[in-house]
C-alpha cells in the first residue's frame, strides 16, 4: 500500500530551482534512500514534503490525501514526521520534556510511551533531566529521532542522520534505525554516506542538482560504482 506519493515535485529556493521534477513513492514499511552530494536538493525535497518550505509545483500525497499545501504541523499530525538535518531541538528543554513535546503530533493516534523510547535509546534514559543543548552530537541525534518516533508516525523522513557523528555512534544509529523499521514505520533516509544508506534502505534515488539521475534497488554491487560516479558529476 502506498503511503507517500510524490509527483513531479518542484521546489524553489529564491528563484533557483532546488528540486526539479522529483517523483517517487514510499510504501508502508518500506525504506528508501535519497542520495546525492550537497546542493543536490535532498534537504529541500524532504523539507518541502514535510511542509516546512513551500512547493512550487507538483504534489505530495500521504495516505491518499493531498498534503502539498498543508503546514508542517498538520503534516506531522497526520503521521509524516521529519527529523531535520539540523535537528531543531529546543535547547533549554530537558530530554524528557522534549519527548513529551513530541507527543503533540499524535492527534488521532496513541503516542508511544516514554519507556519505549528510553528502551531504544538507553543513553537518553540516563540523561532524562539533562538539557538538550548540553547533549553531545550523537545524543542530540538520538533525541531528535526519539522526539519524532514518540508521536507514532507512519513514515519518518530522516535528513542526514549521520551528519557530524563519529563512526561508533553511526553504527549504533544504523542498528537502532533498523529496529525502528521493524516496528513497521516507513523510512525515507537522506544521506551522503553511501555505505550507511546501503545498510538502511531497500531502494535508492540519487539526486544531482535537483534531478533524479539514478533509481533502483540498493543491493546490486554494479549500482554502487554508478552511484559513486553520479556523486562526482
Amino acid at each position, binding site marked *: 500500500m502506498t503511503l507517500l506519493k510524490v509527483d513531479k515535485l518542484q521546489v524553489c529556493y529564491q528563484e533557483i530551482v532546488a528540486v526539479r521534477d522529483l517523483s517517487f513513492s514510499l510504501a508502508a514499511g518500506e525504506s528508501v534512500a535519497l542520495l546525492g552530494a550537497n546542493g543536490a536538493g535532498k534537504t529541500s525535497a524532504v523539507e518541502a514534503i*514535510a*511542509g*516546512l518550505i513551500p512547493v512550487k509545483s507538483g504534489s505530495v500525497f500521504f495516505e491518499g490525501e493531498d498534503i502539498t499545501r498543508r*503546514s*508542517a*504541523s*498538520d503534516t*506531522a*499530525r497526520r503521521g509524516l*514526521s*521529519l527529523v*531535520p538535518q*539540523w*535537528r*531543531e*531541538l*529546543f*535547547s*533549554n*528543554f530537558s530530554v524528557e*520534556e522534549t519527548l*513529551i*513535546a*513530541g507527543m*503533540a*503530533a*499524535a*492527534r488521532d493516534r496513541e503516542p508511544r510511551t516514554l519507556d519505549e523510547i528510553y528502551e531504544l535509546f538507553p543513553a537518553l534514559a540516563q540523561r532524562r533531566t539533562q*538539557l*538538550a*543543548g*548540553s*547533549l553531545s552530537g550523537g545524543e*542530540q541525534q538520538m533525541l531528535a529521532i526519539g*522526539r*519524532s518516533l514518540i*508521536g507514532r508516525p507512519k513514515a519518518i523522513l530522516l535528513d542526514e542522520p549521520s551528519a557530524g557523528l563519529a563512526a561508533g555512534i553511526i553504527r549504533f544509529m544504523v542498528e537502532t534505525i533498523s529496529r525502528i523499521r521493524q516496528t513497521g514505520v516507513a523510512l525515507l533516509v537522506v544521506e551522503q554516506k553511501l555505505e550507511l544508506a546501503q545498510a538502511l534502505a531497500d531502494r535508492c534515488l540519487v539526486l544531482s542538482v535537483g534531478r533524479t539521475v539514478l533509481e533502483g534497488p540498493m543491493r546490486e554491487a554494479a549500482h554502487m560504482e554508478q552511484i559513486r560516479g553520479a556523486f562526482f558529476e
Partner: protein
Amino acid sequence: MSEFIMLLLGGLKFGAIYSLAAVGLIALHKATKVVNFAHGGLVMLGAFGAYLWIVELGYPYWLAYLIVPLIIGVFAATLEFTLLRPLRRADLFATITATIFLGIVLSEAYRMAYNVEILAVPVFWKGSPFFLGDVIVTRDQFWVSAGALIAGGISIAFFRYAPAGRSMRAMASNVRGAQLCGYSMDQMTGLAWFFAGVLAGLAGVFAAPSKGVSPELAVSIISAAFVAAVVGGFDSLLGAILGGLILGITETFAAAYVSSSAKGAVSFLLLFVVLLWRPEGLFPERAGRNV
C-alpha cells in the same frame, strides 16, 4: 524603622503590579519575539474594564478578576489575528513601531470615550488596616501585593509546566522544531497573545484602585514593565518579577527620600544603569545554544 518598612511595603505593592505587567510582556516576547509596546494600553483597558464592571455596572468585585482578564485576552488575540498577522512576515522594525502606535490608538480611543481625567476604582478588600507593631499595612496593600505576585507565580508555573505553556516555550525556542512536533504556529501565536492579554487585564484590575484609570496609565505601565523586564533579564520570567519588585521599591524610596519627581527619573536611571552595566539583566535565564 517602621517608616522604612511601610515604605518597603508600599513599594512592594506597586512592584507587584509592575511584576505582573512585566510577566505578560516577557511571556509574549519569549513566545513570539515581539515586544508589544501596546501592552500598557491593554493594562489600561483592563483597569477601565474593572471600573465599568465594578462602578458602572455594579457587579460583584471578585468576578472582575476573572471576567476582565478574559475579555482583554480575547481582545488581544483578536488584535493579533486582524492587525498583526500580516506583519508576521515583516521585519522587527515594522512590528515594534506598529505596536508603539497601536498603544497610542488604545489610549486615545479610551480618552475619546471617557473624557474625565482619572477614574477612581474602590479597593477590593475593604476594612481597617493591619497593625504589626508600629507598622501599618492596609488591606489593599496586602491584597494587591499577594494577589499580583501569586498571579505572576501561577503564570510562570503555567508557562513552565502546562502543556499549553510548553507549546509556547517550544515555539519560542525553535519555531521549525515546534512545527515538526505538530504545534501550529497560528494557534500558538494566538494563544500567546491571549495569555499576554489575560495577564495585562489582570494587572489592570489590580492596578485600578491605586493608580486610577487614565490614558497616562498606559504609558506609565509600559515603561515600568519594560524597565522591570530589562532589569530582571529580558527573557526571564522570574527576572521580570524580581525586576518589577526592585523597580517598585526603588521608586517609592526615591519619592519619599528625594522628591516626587525623582520617582519618574528613577525608573529610567535604573534602566540606563542596567543596560550599560549588565545588559543581560540581573537575573537572566541560562541561554542555550540553538541545536
